[in-house]
């Protein structure tokens, strides 16, 4: 693992406008991502976990500028990509890919697998149909599909197979980094492991870097090198997976881990059941966003937003407990 970051996210923000009122003007904003910073080293897998709606996908899509970030800087190979022109960005997409959560929605239902996987090749300059055909076969092989699958349509595949097609498409132009937005959460358990294994294999084979988004802690833990935990649009903790799972610092991380049901009847664990609901990102609590549910809340938490700081080596936490 090199020490050079492939991707650097600094102070990323994405606010969605809420329209309403008499004139359909902006009446508020959803702070989907609110000041998130992290680095991803070359060849590394960084997992991001968090509950639904905490801004994981928005982070992922903002990095690729599939939605325009409101603020912040995204550096890819030391180049700030937030200001690239449409055409420059389009070229860069060769190197940065994404795999989506929903294997049903992310493939164009009217295209054959051949076309789905071949299209990125075409738009990035592989004009010969024969070359493309060959490459598509190769890619299908790589993701564990057969050659004859190429002429089929997405609806003729199972969820796992579809996800393989999505992966093949992402791999088409030999990207350097892939953002995986919950690639296995829609899959059946028995198929999930197939995909996770495949992704690990590919990573070594193609020397890929993943940003792996998931809400399932065990999956993230299984695959990632480092893990970030998000809550209400903010990164609350980030460190290597060993440290995180052995010694979670942030009270939210602790609660999250205790809440994950473990398929082991003997696992005796101390349960921290959080009270209340996740607040709305359109109206996040002041100070630390978690203070409304935090079992260890202090006065300062309500006022001051804790800084996301490195409190130990490679262990970042945003919590007043560690100041």
């Amino acid at each position, binding site marked *: 693992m090199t020490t050079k970051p492939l991707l650097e996210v600094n102070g990323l923000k994405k606010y969605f406008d809420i329209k309403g009122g008499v004139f359909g003007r902006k009446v508020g904003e959803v702070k989907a991502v609110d000041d998130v910073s992290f680095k991803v080293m070359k060849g590394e897998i960084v997992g991001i976990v968090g509950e639904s709606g905490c801004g994981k996908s928005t982070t992922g899509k903002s990095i690729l500028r599939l939605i325009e970030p409101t603020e912040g800087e995204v550096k890819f190979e030391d180049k700030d990509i937030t200001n690239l022109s449409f055409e420059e960005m389009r070229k860069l997409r060769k190197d940065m890919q994404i795999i989506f959560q929903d294997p049903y929605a992310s493939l164009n239902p009217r295209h054959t697998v051949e076309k789905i996987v071949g299209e990125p090749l075409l738009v990035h300059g592989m004009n010969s149909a024969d070359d493309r055909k060959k490459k598509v076969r190769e890619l299908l092989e790589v993701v564990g599909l057969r050659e004859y699958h190429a002429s089929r349509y997405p609806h003729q595949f199972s969820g796992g197979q579809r996800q393989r097609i999505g992966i093949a498409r992402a791999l088409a132009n030999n990207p350097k980094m892939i953002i995986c937005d919950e690639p296995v959460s829609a899959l059946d*358990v028995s198929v999930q492991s197939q995909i996770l294994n495949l992704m690990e294999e590919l990573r070594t084979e193609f020397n890929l870097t993943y940003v792996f988004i998931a809400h399932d802690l*065990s999956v993230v*833990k299984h695959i990632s090198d480092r893990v970030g935990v998000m809550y209400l649009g903010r990164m609350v903790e980030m460190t290597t997976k060993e440290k995180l799972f052995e010694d979670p610092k942030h009270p939210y991380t602790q609660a999250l881990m205790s809440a994950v049901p473990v*398929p082991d*009847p003997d696992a005796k664990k101390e349960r921290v059941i*959080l009270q209340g609901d996740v607040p709305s990102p359109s109206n996040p609590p002041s100070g630390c966003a978690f203070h409304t549910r935090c079992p260890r809340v202090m006065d300062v938490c309500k006022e001051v937003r804790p800084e996301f700081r490195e409190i130990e080596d490679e262990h970042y936490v945003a919590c007043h407990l560690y100041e």
Partner: protein
Amino acid sequence: MSDVILELNELHTHFFTDDGEIPAVDGVSFNVHKGEVVGIVGESGCGKSVTSLSIMQLVPSPPGRIVSGEINYKNENLAKASEKRMRKIRGNEIAMIFQEPMTSLNPLFTIGNQLNEAILFHEKVSKKQARKRSIEMLDLVGIPRSNEVIDDYPHQLSGGMRQRVMIAMAMACNPEVLIADEPTTALDVTIQAQILDLMRDLNKEKDTSIILITHDLGVVAEICERVIVMYSGQVVEEGTVRDILKDPQHPYSQGLIRSLPKIHETEQKLYSIPGTVPKPGMNMKGCRFAPRCPHAFDRCFQEDPELYSIAEGRYSRCFLHDSEEGGIRDDYETTIRS
């Protein structure tokens, strides 16, 4: 063990579609005891929901229909019960909550209106009393400001709150059996923990039997006593939680459990069951799991295995348990459950 309150016997529920007949539930048998929490696990499409809907006689019809089999509830075969009788039972004796708290409440009526209904259908009480009861139920499931929430519309509540409302609604008439079809799948883990906690409490307090349908073995481990594993419309294994999770017998269950990433252990490579879940209605000869099974042999592709009883309250649908095959546990007597 206490008395059996609900017993399914060779239940067959089929869908008659343009593409042919789909045996979504294909001979399912199991029973539920008073005050027990039974989990049904299985992958998507294996027939869990259809099984539970069949019990309630709520299978969408057309195209679905209970083709044969018995659903014995307190010595009454619900499969043959009239719609009128079922109306008495639904909500009152057997209640059900569904996976999607977001869509399971009518968006155009207030929470109170929908809760009252559950009470008014079955009890001769005034509207006022019903409302009072409704507020109590909301309190019971831990909804704060219950007397305000009762006049809210569903869209004003969060997913977790709605699922609580659903539970309150189901519990309103103190049912004997509560069927929960993936009640937490759509919820976040922290909220899921709250809901599971709640269900556990209700089960303890009211002694309600719960059938909990889920595909998450973790959830099963959290609250179930007994587990039924389904695959492709059939029960493939049954046993206590500990039996199933620690000592699975059916190759499918084994594979399923091995393929889970473990949060407290680190392993390099996950086990994975090869192949995919068969599409219902496809060629059904032999054991449904045979094409993906590492132990499969010729017979598995020819004959349908039966549900072998391999120990007290322990069943598995695999020829490996057949004494003729010299199965892995041939010391157990292999009686066949009807």
